[in-house]
């Protein structure tokens, strides 16, 4: 049998994947794709502007098609179907016969008939090519607009902002945003939130003309107004690609789409249509999950099965725009058919609405804006017609106090056939079964069931289900390190301490099994370092270190390393600046001032590292531990020595703090800062521990974080004298080191802590556990044991030997390392 598939988009690819999974012999598969690249994740297209590469987005590499004997013709669209001869003809003139033809041609952006749409600077938002063109055009544009305030329009607007165009406008024809998904009050709040992000929103605007010579320079509207813009993205809806079908005399819908029956068959029984080009019961499904279901149905029927497609849930959760937006079930049930419960908080920008059946028993649908964390649970509650609790508003607001029951009895109340991952159609039953069969962690379940492999929206639910299933089996859920250690990090910390173990091998012999892995090795040697503060590369612990710790430097693109000497508090003498300049010049290193107030030198070959450090150390520098889960920098502001507002000498205190905790190994990296007054120029409140001068002493803040989930630090102590402040930090850090999970920053550690900051205050300040003395002593031991680990390497020939690229050609550099030049310095060559 020979199956020809037109279109290598998301759904066309899924069809191939499902077909291969069935492993039926004797099927020839030929795919024609119009785009020049193999199928990619269009749903996450916008992450292309977020650092994701074309390759990251690929659904499968070219090798996958070859391996599975799929003949893939890319960049060669089908131009004609001869339904009676059962052949297709492509642009390059290939003729291919088929037994079954599957059309997965998707849709294109709908471009309204406005004069001027063909001008330069006007784009649509659908393919990687569209995004590449936008990316190269954007630097020329100062302002931009998007036509369309729907799901995709908002995403496109966010993308324009990500491209650096801060003056971005949204033009919506209707009187409000996302009219098809959310209600009027929701639109209002959403609009307000987006305006806060800097987007300018124009509703009830109808564009009459896109003006400009060859290139767009402004837009004119029916109300007589106009807007100057340098760039425009049209996102006014989608248009099913049914042109081929029409030529082949297949029935198509009046407003586009290839008509299919519940088997996904077109009006020609040998031709199927799936995905965004298919019109089922008058409806185009512009989402990927129903497309995947259509692929399954079509495949099953071609292979002689009898699956049918039925109307599909169109609940959506918008991603990426910086404001949560979700709607599920029927968000618009008319007032007389339901009771709507609404929660609005204009200050926080949160709007939630649920529609409850008149008898108060069932959830019909709803809208969530500003906070969609309950989306999965609510969606499941509605979809599975689960009974609501006695006070239906609890599902919106949580039970305020009292014992917490989740929406409608929570995840356990879901029926077995509840679809948890709608992209891949994985049910609760399937996930629980996988866990019972021994797939006891998230990755294993993901691999086995495919749940959470597509949009990832169901990840939290899948994780909860794993935990619940294990608990239901009577398994004690422990947060174990990995398959080699059946203990949590905290348990390992205590065991290693009691047994006085000092090497990874000893620990594995005592408490582990197998040979270890990249998860437990760094976790265990970090504990060992936190307990004894011995050189990390001796006693065979070197090969258990994370690779950056093993080379005492961060590996960079191309395989060279960075060198970051410690510059406590950010203070440095002119002489030392010259040393850095001289060394960087000698070894050809790129130099940059970091965000942590020090200087980073990039591009060092592994064999140069000891030589570079030898020179730096001779001039009084020491390791900055930029590579370790250790103290990084203690930033300072200039403080009272110069600043007219400074209350105390923040630089001196920052240096004192940095020198006290330098080299301290912890579950994750640690950052700190000291500001000389409440103006907070050192940004202390974004650090793991931050100190701000007050009239009477120092305020100490803890558990702040920058990075991907910024969080402000919370006040731990007020008006402290310097000694007390240091004592509290000692206790705080030691308590964190002893109890946090691996790779958990202080902010996340606190977020998971029962009792939160109040509990932490009790332990650290009021000594509620009676361990303060012990914590302080342990910290003092670590402080006393500090040595610069780079000095130890420089002085130890055995350790130096490990800093070579080739074992059989010491000193010879990796010939594959390549650099380019940029602004008079070198940079790593782009990777493939």
């Amino acid at each position: 049998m020979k199956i020809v598939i037109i279109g290598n988009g998301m759904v066309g690819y899924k069809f191939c994947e499902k077909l291969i999974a069935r492993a039926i012999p004797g099927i020839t598969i030929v795919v024609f794709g119009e785009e020049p690249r193999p199928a990619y994740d269009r749903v996450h297209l916008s992450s292309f502007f977020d650092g994701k590469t074309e390759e990251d987005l690929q659904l499968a590499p070219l090798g996958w098609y070859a391996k599975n004997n799929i003949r893939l013709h890319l960049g060669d669209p089908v131009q004609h179907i001869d339904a009676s001869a059962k052949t297709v003809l492509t642009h390059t003139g290939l003729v291919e016969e088929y037994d079954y033809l599957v059309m997965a041609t998707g849709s294109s952006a709908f471009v309204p008939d406005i004069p001027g749409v063909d001008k330069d600077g006007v784009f649509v938002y659908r393919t990687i090519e569209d995004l590449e063109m936008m990316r190269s055009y954007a630097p020329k544009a100062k302002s931009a607009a998007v036509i369309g305030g729907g799901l995709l329009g908002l995403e496109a607007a966010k993308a324009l902002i990500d491209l650096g165009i801060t003056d971005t406008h949204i033009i919506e024809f209707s009187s409000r945003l996302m009219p098809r998904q959310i209600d009027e009050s929701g639109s209002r709040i959403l609009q307000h939130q987006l305006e806060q992000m800097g987007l300018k929103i124009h509703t009830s605007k109808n564009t009459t003309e896109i003006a400009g010579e060859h290139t767009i320079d402004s837009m004119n509207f029916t109300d007589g107004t106009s807007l100057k813009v340098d760039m425009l993205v049209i996102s006014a809806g989608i248009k099913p690609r049914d042109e081929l079908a029409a030529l082949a005399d297949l029935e198509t819908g009046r407003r586009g789409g290839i008509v299919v029956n519940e088997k996904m068959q077109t009006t020609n029984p040998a031709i199927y249509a799936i995905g965004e080009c298919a019109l089922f019961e008058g409806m185009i499904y512009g989402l990927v999950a129903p497309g995947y279901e259509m692929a399954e149905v079509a495949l099953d029927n071609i292979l002689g099965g009898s699956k049918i497609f039925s109307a599909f849930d169109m609940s959506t959760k918008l991603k990426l725009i910086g404001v949560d937006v979700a709607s599920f079930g029927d968000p618009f049930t008319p007032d007389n058919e339901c009771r709507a419960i609404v929660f609005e908080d204009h200050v926080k920008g949160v709007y939630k609405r649920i529609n409850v059946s008149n008898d108060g028993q069932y959830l019909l649908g709803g809208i969530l804006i500003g906070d969609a964390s309950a989306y999965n649970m609510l969606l499941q509650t509605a979809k599975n017609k689960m009974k609501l609790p006695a006070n239906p508003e609890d599902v919106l607001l949580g039970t305020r106090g009292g014992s917490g029951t989740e929406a409608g009895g929570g995840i356990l109340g879901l029926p077995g056939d509840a679809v948890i991952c709608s992209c891949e159609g994985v049910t609760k039953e399937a996930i629980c079964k996988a866990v019972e069969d021994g797939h006891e962690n998230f990755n294993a379940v993901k691999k086995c069931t495919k749940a959470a492999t597509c949009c990832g929206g169901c990840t939290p639910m899948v994780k909860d289900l794993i935990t619940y299933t294990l608990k239901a089996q009577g398994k004690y859920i422990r947060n174990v390190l990995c398959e080699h250690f059946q203990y949590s990090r905290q348990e390992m910390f205590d065991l290693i301490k009691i047994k006085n173990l000092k090497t990874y091998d000893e620990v594995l012999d005592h408490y582990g099994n197998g040979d270890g892995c990249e998860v437990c090795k760094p976790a265990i040697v970090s504990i060992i370092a936190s307990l004894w503060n011995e050189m990390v590369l001796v006693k065979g612990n070197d090969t258990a270190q994370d690779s950056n710790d093993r080379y005492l430097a961060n590996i960079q693109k191309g395989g060279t390393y960075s060198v970051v000497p410690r510059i406590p508090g950010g203070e440095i003498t002119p002489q030392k600046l010259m040393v850095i300049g001289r060394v960087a010049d000698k070894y050809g290193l790129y130099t940059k001032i970091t965000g942590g107030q020090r200087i980073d030198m990039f591009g060092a070959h592994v064999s140069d590292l000891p030589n570079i450090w030898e020179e730096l150390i001779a001039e009084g520098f020491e390791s900055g531990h930029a590579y370790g889960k250790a103290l990084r920098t203690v930033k300072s502001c200039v403080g009272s020595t110069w600043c007219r507002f400074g209350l105390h000498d923040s630089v001196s205190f920052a240096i004192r703090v940095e020198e006290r905790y330098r080299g301290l190994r912890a579950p994750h990296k640690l950052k700190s800062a000291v500001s000389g007054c409440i103006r907070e120029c050192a940004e202390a409140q974004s650090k793991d521990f931050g100190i701000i001068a007050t009239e009477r002493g120092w305020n100490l803040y803890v558990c702040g974080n920058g990075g991907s989930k910024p969080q402000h630090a919370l006040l731990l102590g007020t008006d402290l004298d310097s000694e007390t402040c240091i004592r509290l930090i000692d206790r705080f850090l030691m308590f964190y080191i002893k109890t946090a999970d691996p790779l958990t920053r202080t902010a996340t550690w606190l977020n998971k802590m029962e009792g939160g900051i109040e509990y932490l205050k009790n332990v650290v300040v009021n000594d509620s556990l009676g361990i303060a003395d012990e914590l302080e002593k342990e910290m003092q031991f670590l402080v006393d044991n500090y040595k610069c680990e780079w000095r130890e390497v420089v002085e130890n020939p055995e350790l130096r030997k490990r800093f070579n690229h080739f074992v059989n050609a010491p000193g010879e550099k990796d010939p594959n390392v390549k650099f380019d030049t940029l602004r008079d310095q070198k940079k790593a060559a782009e990777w493939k």
Partner: protein
Amino acid sequence: MSILSTEVTTWFFACKVEDVPANGGVCVKYNEEQIALFHFARRGEWYASQNLCPHRMQMALSRGMIGTQAGEPKVACPFHKKTFSLADGRCLTDEHECSLTVYPVRIEDDRVYIGIQNGREAAEVMA
């Protein structure tokens, strides 16, 4: 040295046993190729694979952490922690990722030899 050369495989001398850190790896230069050599000291086993990580084409696998997954020996690339089986070279984290070429290793006295199949240069299979 008959044992070191068979009809299909050339065994070349890589380094001494002591040159390789216990439970770690080194990079061996073989003509213009780079081969990652690993000593699983706890199991008394040796493995070798291409040094090039197929994910982003980085010459780095010898600097990765080694370990096991359900008893199967593996290496984790330092760059993005993709893991590869050292038994057969397949990627354990991502079924779509290309496989590594792996090589047999032999120890004679305290010398480490890596076996290269004649006529099948590493570069060819790495691409």
